[in-house]
């Protein structure tokens, strides 16, 4: 395999943060190179340097095909054959697939107008080359997230990219879509395209990697062929702890006391998209962790949004045996419900605000007297969570915008846990967070139940659900298709209920 891009001694300093410290990276054509490391290790920053979004500190060098190169900006990077597929997809929903693939370089006809026929034909050819069965004139807004990602890959291919970077591409994909993606990655590698692949999912890493490089605290700590790497070693390199020490045994604090009972929950106004949730009934016990599993589109998030009042519903919700009216999030919060949402950028955080301000937004009244905020107490409380959750940030005044993805997720968890709700709903709590932090979050949830909190966990990570839940509810096409006790909830049983 031929060497394509070399990075030597790359450093990057942000105000107060040394994100990268003399990193070396060698990328070859036809190789799937996995970049692993804790949240805030510097993976995304390194990729942004490679694609010209950031300029590295002076002192390092980037060589492409053996030539010293300064990558000026993303357009230049693309001209050099480097494309990136961001987790927050960069597609225009109102345009067709072909229009997206050829955005800003539309083929023009003799009249100077866009040659639609040629554009669609070219797009069809690229899609066919990749075995993607999407019609070029489909509106992108109608596609699933996985399909949108395929469109982005097609776009990268149409640029004749030699290197495609994927930063946590499977984080919001269904299991099936993730499998399709990993197959696509292997196929691209077989066509002699180099791939950089960032992921926190262990299974995935070992499935597709040819080579694994580990970053820790902005430095390269290891780089070797995947064949020489084991899970235990990878975890040790990433977090400097043993895998076996990370995840403690499950300690149940579940009682038989019913805290919340939901009866006949369904959508008030069924919409075209999403599952038609109907007739969902279940009880949540005090001190219990109740897992919700289902395939993407089964309606898990919709159910949670109804309970939280951000989606209107029919049916009843009773807490402590008394029926409650929940018509808005603030109603739900008033009844002691908290909700760690799935999408942190859109729903979880005010990106332009500081860590402290985001943290306290759910429970600001606690730090107020006569509506005046006591800044010192607010900062102290925030500091406590930054320490206990290991949030990597130079200070509580840092804008969350500047935090790494996983650390942003921890801020969302902190802002809800600090409110100490009686019922905490967490939707994909460990998406995008590293394995060490994941273990910390699991331990935290367990500790909260020991203090009497009841928790509903929604996750598409089945092993996670099985590891932490006292009971598992399986949803299928908007209805409950199984309620399993911890002892009956095996991988097979749950999948059977979800798909069967």
């Amino acid at each position, binding site marked *: 395999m031929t060497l394509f891009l070399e990075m030597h001694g790359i450093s990057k*300093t942000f*105000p*107060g*943060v*040394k*994100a990268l*410290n003399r990193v070396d990276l060698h990328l070859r054509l036809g190789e799937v190179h996995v970049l692993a490391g804790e949240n*805030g*290790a*510097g993976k995304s920053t390194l990729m*942004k340097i490679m694609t010209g*979004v*950031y300029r590295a500190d002076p002192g390092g060098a980037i060589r492409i095909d053996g030539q010293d190169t300064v990558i000026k900006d993303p357009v230049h990077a693309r001209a050099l054959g480097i494309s990136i597929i961001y987790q927050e997809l960069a597609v225009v929903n109102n345009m067709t697939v072909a229009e997206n693939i050829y955005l800003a370089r539309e083929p023009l006809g003799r009249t100077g107008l866009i040659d639609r026929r040629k554009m669609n034909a070219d797009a069809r050819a690229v899609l066919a080359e990749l075995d993607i069965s999407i019609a070029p004139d489909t509106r992108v807004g109608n596609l699933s997230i996985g399909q949108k990602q395929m469109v982005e890959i097609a776009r990268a291919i149409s640029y004749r990219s030699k290197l495609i970077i994927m930063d946590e591409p499977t984080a919001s994909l269904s299991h099936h879509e993730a499998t399709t993606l990993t197959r696509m990655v292997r196929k691209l590698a077989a066509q002699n395209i180099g791939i950089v692949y960032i992921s926190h999912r262990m299974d995935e890493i070992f499935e597709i990697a040819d080579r694994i490089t580990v970053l820790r*605290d*902005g430095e390269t700590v290891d780089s070797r062929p995947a064949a020489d790497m084991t899970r235990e070693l990878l975890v040790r390199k990433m977090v400097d702890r043993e895998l076996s020490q990370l995840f403690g045994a499950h300690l149940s604090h579940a009682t038989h006391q019913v805290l919340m009972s939901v009866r006949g929950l369904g959508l008030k106004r069924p919409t075209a998209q999403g599952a038609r949730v109907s007739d969902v009934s279940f009880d949540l016990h005090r001190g219990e962790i109740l897992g919700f599993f289902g395939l993407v589109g089964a309606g898990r998030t919709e159910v949670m949004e109804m309970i*939280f009042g*951000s989606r209107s519903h029919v049916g009843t919700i009773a807490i402590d045996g008394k029926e409650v009216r929940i018509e*808005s*999030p*603030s109603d739900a*919060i008033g009844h002691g419900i908290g*909700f760690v*949402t799935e999408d942190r950028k*859109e*729903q*979880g*955080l*005010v*990106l*332009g*605000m500081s860590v402290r*301000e985001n943290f*306290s*937004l*759910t429970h*600001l*009244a606690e730090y*107020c007297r006569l*509506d*005046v*905020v006591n*800044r010192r107490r607010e900062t102290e409380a925030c500091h406590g969570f930054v320490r206990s959750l290991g949030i*990597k940030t*130079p*200070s509580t005044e840092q804008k969350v*915008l*500047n935090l790494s993805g996983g650390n942003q997720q921890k801020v969302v968890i902190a*802002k809800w846990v600090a409110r100490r709700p009686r019922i905490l709903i967490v939707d994909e709590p460990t998406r995008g967070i590293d394995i060490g932090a994941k273990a910390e979050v699991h331990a935290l949830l367990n500790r909260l139940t020991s203090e009497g909190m009841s928790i509903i966990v929604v996750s598409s990570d089945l092993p996670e659900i099985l590891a932490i839940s006292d009971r598992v509810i399986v949803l299928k096409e908007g209805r409950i298709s199984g309620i399993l006790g911890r002892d009956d909830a095996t991988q097979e049983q749950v999948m059977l209920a979800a798909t069967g």
Partner: protein
Amino acid sequence: MSMSGQKSATAEQTPQRLWHGLAQLRHVREVNVLLAMLIVGALISLYTPYFLTTNNLMGVFRAFSLTAIMSIGMVMVIITGGIDLSVGSAMGLASLVTALCFDAGFGTSTSIAAGVGVGVTFGLANGLLITAVGLPPFIATLGTLSIGRGMMYMITHGVPVTPDTPEAFSVLGQGYVGPVPVPVVIMLALMVVFALVMRRTRFGRHVYATGGNEHAARLSGVKTDRVKLAVYVLSSTIASLAGIIGFSRYLSAEPASGFGSELDVIAAAAIGGASLAGGVGSVTGAVIGAALVGVIANGVVLLNINTYAQQAITGGVILIAVSLDVLRSKLTGGNG
């Protein structure tokens, strides 16, 4: 990743830290606008020493005080991600209603209350159109702007209302506290109060959160509709106050009073660092923005520049101020 910032901060000697702190001030928008104003002021005073006399300066302050007062309400609306185009009409109609009340023989407090009532009504109308009906703020307040202005012409038939008013009422617009005109005192008081509200209270935090990411704020339990209703009511009410002060100064309610002033007010907020996308801005910034425009206006007069040029100059100032800000955050922030 190492926390180099913290380490170096503790290692630094005190004078260095002070210098560092001063250097940080560079990044505060208000300070930049204030500096710009001082520079403009210095330039003007080079040409005419009269600029720096107490007499002239107080006149300048009084001239921009009404715009500054209205910009305090406006900037709160802008921080929620909205806009209030109706402030000029709220101001004008409030001054007219106050004048009509005096004309009908009501006392000072009743007349003022009626004027303030106009502001509250405007604010409730705007706020409800935006939150309950769901109109975009631009459209809702454009509508109330026209309605208010139309009502003024209908009521006055284009003729100013000049009632007899008690001596005490004219203090509001014409009085002095020491050398300082009363409208300027009111402006400063409102500025201090609302700067504290925005910086230190829960309400203020909720205003910023609503503009920063309304969806996330609502899901965090912020009653975003109530926050929006509140800022529109505040904006119109403050504008009506400005109208009453303006009437007290000239004791004549003109049908065109406040016409077009929404643009000056928005300009002040924007120069002071408010982002029309929401989430960013400050009360002091808006007042300083109004001051900068006021100083320039005065300079135009003192330097005998064609007064028509003033508007063009103000436009230039807006573009330069906001462009510099955008460029600076591109250079230092670099977060895509």
